């Protein structure tokens, strides 16, 4: 089957931190996860935006928790896209959330139409995988080409993030091997990545300036300048750090395209915490 933007849709979940999905592309939808403060539950972005979330996080007596979309939520999104013949449903890894499980249950109802994809990554990087698929749809593509793209993305896309404190990752149980990497007393910044769906520590440095320098070192070490280089940036209440990273990217790799700069929504923010900043890249050259 020839896949085009006219006959193929893309669904992301809200951990892609790309709430404007449906506005930007008529063939996209975003399905929100839930964030829960006590007994009150909100749909990520839809009922609780990042700004209100971080305000609330500051004063919440008990920390929020998150929960995956229901299979029904996905079924509703797929139903909205009934006019399309194929749906790529791109999600946060199974190891970090049960979201893709709900998507699979809903997808099964529709036979082969929906292909759930474990992106192996998080936040804006999920949206970036979606963008890469979209670029192919716009020029015409096939399932096989998309499969190859997903494999290449998982293997080669870069992801770095740093958190102000490991507390949030720890509380949500999403810390993996970074558990040992504490060092809160000395303003130690862990530089983290996601590998095989798991949060993995790369290095620890002291202070925001060194964290930035480390981002720069890794980014320049692993990328070459070129128009195929795509970059994304996400932050939780740290617009200055995001802007500093953007400037660094533009300075070091002037031909690259910074295709998304976004705020971490309530769900990803629950697990990363304020002050988090992430840098994502993918050389889409095949």
């Amino acid at each position: 089957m020839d896949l085009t933007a006219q006959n193929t849709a893309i669904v992301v979940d809200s951990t892609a931190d790309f709430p404007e999905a449906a506005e930007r592309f008529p063939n996209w939808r975003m399905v929100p996860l839930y964030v829960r403060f006590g007994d009150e539950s909100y749909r990520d972005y839809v009922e609780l935006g990042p700004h209100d979330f971080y305000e609330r996080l500051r004063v919440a007596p008990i920390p929020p928790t998150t929960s995956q979309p229901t299979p029904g939520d996905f079924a509703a999104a797929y139903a909205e896209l009934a006019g399309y013949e194929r749906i790529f449903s791109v999600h946060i890894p199974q190891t970090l959330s049960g979201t893709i499980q709900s998507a699979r249950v809903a997808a099964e109802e529709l036979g082969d139409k929906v292909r759930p994809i474990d992106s192996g990554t998080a936040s804006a990087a999920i949206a970036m995988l979606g963008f890469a698929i979209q670029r192919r749809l716009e020029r015409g593509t096939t399932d096989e080409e998309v499969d190859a793209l997903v494999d290449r993305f998982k293997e080669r896309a870069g992801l770095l993030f740093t958190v102000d404190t490991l507390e949030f990752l720890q509380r949500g149980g999403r810390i993996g091997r970074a558990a040992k990497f504490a060092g809160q007393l000395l303003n130690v910044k862990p530089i983290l990545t996601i590998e095989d769906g798991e949060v993995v520590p790369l290095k620890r440095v002291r202070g925001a300036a060194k964290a930035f320098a480390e981002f720069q070192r890794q980014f320049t070490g692993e990328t070459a300048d070129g128009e195929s280089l795509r970059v994304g940036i996400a932050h939780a209440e740290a617009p200055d750090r995001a802007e500093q990273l953007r400037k660094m990217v533009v300075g070091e790799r002037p031909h690259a395209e910074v295709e998304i700069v976004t705020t971490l929504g309530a769900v990803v923010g629950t697990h990363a915490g304020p002050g988090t900043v992430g840098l994502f890249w993918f050389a889409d050259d095949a």
Partner: protein
Amino acid sequence: MTGLELARGALASLEQSRQRIDDLNVYPVPDGDTGTNLTLTCRAIVEALEGSTAHDQAAIAKELTRAALMGARGNSGVILSQIVRGFAEVLGEAGAIDTPTLARAFRGASDAAYRAVRRPVEGTMLTVIREVAEAAERSDSTRAPAAFLVSLVRAGEESLARTQDLLDVLRDAGVVDAGGAGLVEILRGLAATAAGEPIPEAPPAPELSIDAIHQELSEFRYCTTFVIEGEGLVREELERELERLGDSLLVVGDPTAYKVHVHTDAPGDALAIGTTRGTIAGVEIANMHTQTHGREQRLLHVVPDLVSEVVAVVVGEGNRKLFESLGATSFVEGGQTMNPSTADLVAAVERTGAPEIVLLPNNSNVIMSAEQAATLAGKPVEVVASDSLQAGLAAIVSFDPQRGAAENATEMREVLDAVATGEVTVASRDAQLNGLAVPKGAYLGLAGGEAVSVGDDFAQVVTDVVERLLAEPRGILTMLRGEDAPDVDALVAAIAERHPDVEVDVQDGGQPHYPLLLSAE
């Protein structure tokens, strides 16, 4: 008996155990919300049935399936929705609902649940629904449905108990599977409702064992346990007093002897509460730091054993904590005026568990004995020749226990080359240093080992040292305050104003003789 009544029974039973099930949740992600998710899923089903106008069995079954699908919360909720769906599909097509039909419905439920999960893991709620279905098929089909369901509750409980044997992460955490526990509560609610009985009380939360309570994260450092023996001891009184010292408190026993367990930073105070009321015995005080560590390893099963550890020579309780927070596990007390022996260092290396060691001498006078110790120790030791405590502290930041000692040492030495260090001390006698006359009792400021400032004004001497350290562009300035050090708040504010790009980090080091140790990176 309507479907709605049965669903309400299941919900009521789940609600009672919601918290207990949340607490069991360690798999697949230990985020403690399984009970809540199952309850919300079940509540969505009840609400949908309450609003339903369907009358025939097939239509109700369809609504049930849809409600479960729409309302499913969390991974456990999604699996539950598939169980409900498989169950409802059989009932929807059946005529009378009798025991053989129910047995087929449980089989349908189990099959649907397994189909929904890409890689089924045993020791989870999947195991429980499958073993319940198998028990249902084996069961006497002439039994009345209510009695049949009661027998399935038992089968479910037995299956649940076995989840521990099937999934290491559960055994290590000393819990059964949370989703499976939820399923058993649902069965219990269904069975009671079918029999026309009230929902039985939830099984009492098992008296928390000390192992289980350790699964909680604690901000306190020492796990302290002891027994107080005496006469007429009052548990509530003990709890009230001990509560103030920390968390994870457990006081169990009888008025003649209570076993106390508490996480606290003040184990001595906890023991004192015991000795004012009776005699204490069986005292155990363990550093939680290493225990929590161990728990995370067990829970996540992804952390390989430590490849290397750091042995550090330190002086000052605060400094020791800083090194510990960055992964040092074995310490030798010592510094400028008290140099440890080679034997002390070898002994510290031998106390470690990791196969390779990085040794931080943290003083120029200790480097040689450290190098000697490295040749004498029974395992590979890399000496990272830190000539001051603050330099060693900068170096240990880049230590990663999952790398070998040599690889760590290479990176740590690079840090040493880049860090600038200084200190402020008090002259112990009249002296001449780098052409400066240093009267006894004056503050003496050194940068890079050279005397750069002398005087009675602490702030001025510190400022001189700081300016020297920040002569090259730096990102972070660390100050370790010694014991009885003058206040530095005003100084820090002034430095921040002069060097807005530098982060200033002040820590209580607690070292003697040096009111301030400084480093700039």
